[in-house]
């Protein structure tokens, strides 16, 4: 009897329970309970003029938008398991992840949307925690959450919470957009005495700008997010716990832009870690990226966790780290700027771009040999973000 599948219809009680402690299907129905959820949980957290309109869509002013400006638009979904981990939860990732995708385009992040898919039976307390984290992360990142959606799926058909966030940002005038760049040579003016290019002259920040001779920097030590997640899944005990590095990277990018540093490419190092990101770039541009193992920053405890779990830190996910590829002549100045910003205070140079062998990332090992750093095969760590 217990295993009998429902046949033609399912009975449900017509009187909605005032379900305070858990999500029920009716929360996704669009009726009273949905309304309650929005009014009690989402609106108070993200209070802003656009949301308060309670309209189907948000109509928004774009500060800084003028002739020559460009919009950046991105979307990302978050299915991390466990929902809550040392250093954060799925809410932090959902905000910072999308903020960072905008930042990697050189765009000032402005607005986010959030779509929630909740599983029947989810504890309301968990939802509150996640939403509260999103509010804090959004405030810190300087973004407003202006529109959203909620659906509820049957118990067993979801995993607590799935979140999709889309984001809009503005790229100040002068940086050509990716459509314009395709097929065009970058416009460089003669470098002035400072060596820095003015805003109007800089080419777009995108992998297509990467060239042999460029320097490769990373904004901090690797592997914290992945290990924080695994520490829960594997029940690892730490003397002092490793926390996820989830954070907004915009302050670091903004500092680089304001200092007039010419940047060729910015990429955050999420799934698949530094190795995957650099492989994508090397593949796209048919270049060789050469890394110095001795220079790659990994915290001792993170390294230890990787040893025990048989992981390579180069492939472990980060949620608050990025790689910057820029002209060699700008590397020192860029590091100076980055180190003054909290989220990138441990920035360091890790390698350089060369012409050959193409489509390859090579590591010069600590003991002086060379090896290729390949693309990740299969899923090393599922549901990491």
């Amino acid at each position, binding site marked *: 009897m217990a295993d009998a599948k429902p046949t033609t219809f399912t009975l449900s009680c017509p009187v909605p329970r005032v379900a305070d402690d858990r999500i029920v299907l009716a929360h996704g129905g669009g009726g009273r309970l949905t309304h309650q959820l929005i009014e009690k949980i989402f609106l108070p957290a993200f209070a802003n003029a656009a949301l308060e309109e309670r309209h189907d869509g948000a109509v928004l002013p774009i500060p800084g938008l003028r002739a020559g400006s460009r919009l950046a638009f991105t979307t990302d979904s978050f299915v991390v398991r466990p929902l809550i981990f040392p250093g954060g939860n799925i809410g932090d990732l959902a905000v910072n992840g999308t903020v960072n995708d905008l930042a990697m385009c050189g765009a000032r992040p402005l607005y986010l949307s959030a779509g929630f898919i909740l599983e029947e039976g989810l504890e309301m307390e968990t939802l509150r925690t996640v939403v509260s984290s999103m509010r804090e992360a959004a405030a810190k990142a300087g973004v407003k959450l202006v529109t959203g959606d909620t659906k509820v799926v049957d118990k067993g058909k979801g995993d607590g919470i799935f979140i999709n966030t889309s984001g809009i940002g503005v790229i100040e005038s002068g940086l050509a957009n990716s459509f314009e760049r395709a097929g065009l040579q970058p416009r460089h003016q003669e470098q002035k005495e400072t060596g820095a290019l003015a805003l109007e002259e800089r080419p777009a920040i995108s992998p297509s700008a990467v060239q042999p001779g460029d320097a490769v920097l990373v904004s901090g030590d690797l592997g914290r997010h992945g290990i924080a997640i695994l520490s829960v899944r594997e029940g690892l005990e730490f003397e002092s716990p490793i926390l996820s590095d989830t954070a907004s990277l915009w302050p670091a990018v903004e500092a680089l832009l304001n200092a007039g540093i010419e940047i060729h490419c910015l990429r955050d190092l999420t799934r698949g870690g530094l190795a995957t990101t650099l492989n994508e770039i090397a593949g796209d541009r048919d270049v060789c990226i050469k890394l110095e193992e001795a220079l790659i920053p990994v915290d001792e405890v993170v*390294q230890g966790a990787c040893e025990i779990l048989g992981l390579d830190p180069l492939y472990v996910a980060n949620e608050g780290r990025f790689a910057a590829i820029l002209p060699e002549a700008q590397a020192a100045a860029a590091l100076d700027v980055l180190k003054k910003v909290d989220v990138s205070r441990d920035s360091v140079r890790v390698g350089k771009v060369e012409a050959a062998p193409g489509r390859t990332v090579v590591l010069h090992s600590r*003991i*002086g040999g*060379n*090896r*290729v*750093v390949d693309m990740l*095969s299969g899923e090393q760590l599922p549901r990491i973000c």
Partner: protein
Amino acid sequence: MKFLSEYRDQKAAEQLADAIGKKTTRPWTIMEVCGGQTHTIVKSGLEDLLPREITLVHGPGCPVCVTPIELIDKAVSIAQRPEVIFCSFGDMLRVPGSRKSLFDVKAEGADVRIVYSPLDALKLAKTNRDRQVVFFAVGFETTAPANAMAAWQADHDGVENFSLLVSHVLVPPAMEALLSSDHCVVQGFLAAGHVCTVMGFEEYLPIAEKYKVPIVVTGFEPLDILEGILMAVTQLEEGRQEVENQYSRAVRREGNRPAQERISEVFEVSPRQWRGLGEIPASGFQLRGRFQKYDANLRFPFSGEPGRESPECIAGLILQGIKKPHECPAFAVKCTPENPLGAPMVSSEGACAAYYHYGRRQTHDVHAELPSPASR
């Protein structure tokens, strides 16, 4: 990390490589037995530091790789039973069977779980009394003490819903089989350091003497392997054929006696099929005496269709060091970690996996294009 990081020191590595270079006057072929050593070599680009006269060949030291295909098929068939929770080390999941791998049946709904220790599997049996928990006990002698303990504790605690599918293989018989083959090109061995931590190295003395090969018990860090090579080359140059212990911080001549005693209590030596190499007498372990009740082979009858290997997989030649992975026509073309034709491409200790991940390709040997450190 202490007793790990120091053995990755660049200066020390250069000094050892320099010493090897000075010692070497003629070509020598040395085999490192254990897959873990193969991975360190390829991952650190260690061969770049060696003089051209030294050729390293990779041995059959990958228990995942040598597990017979019939046993994979049996594991898959057991895992598909609804009452079974099938536990295994992560490596075994993607090893191809005749038709499916454990990973395939897991995706189809079988309860297959990755564990890090056989005691984890035993714990699952205790907390899931209504299920049959089966642990895929694969490994060299290194893992035998752990598996023996799992069986012993199960017996001690009266756990009945637990069993082991055993695929233990022993190193010395494999080395002998290799050495007695006509194709053998190996002149010196780096023996598996962790196997010897458990078993000691006395059983290698008759091998060194009979086949006239130096055998150096070696660790797994770059400095260990470089020192092991130095010791082997020194013996070869001086015409000695002894057993030496490089990994003396962990290995004693007699090995770990309590571990050996527990192994003898639970297991007995038996003939074993080695995937790619054929049957080698007295080269495996099977459960004995009162522990036979935990033998999954006996508990789960199996129709036993003969296994079907991919005709293109040359794992046997790879495991004997006769061919290198990038010399296989299917390597990185038809055979990749996502679609492996054989075991060495999926195991974390497999030579093909090491070559694939660290950049050796067949048509495009990237490694060959890399600038090597200034030659000596």
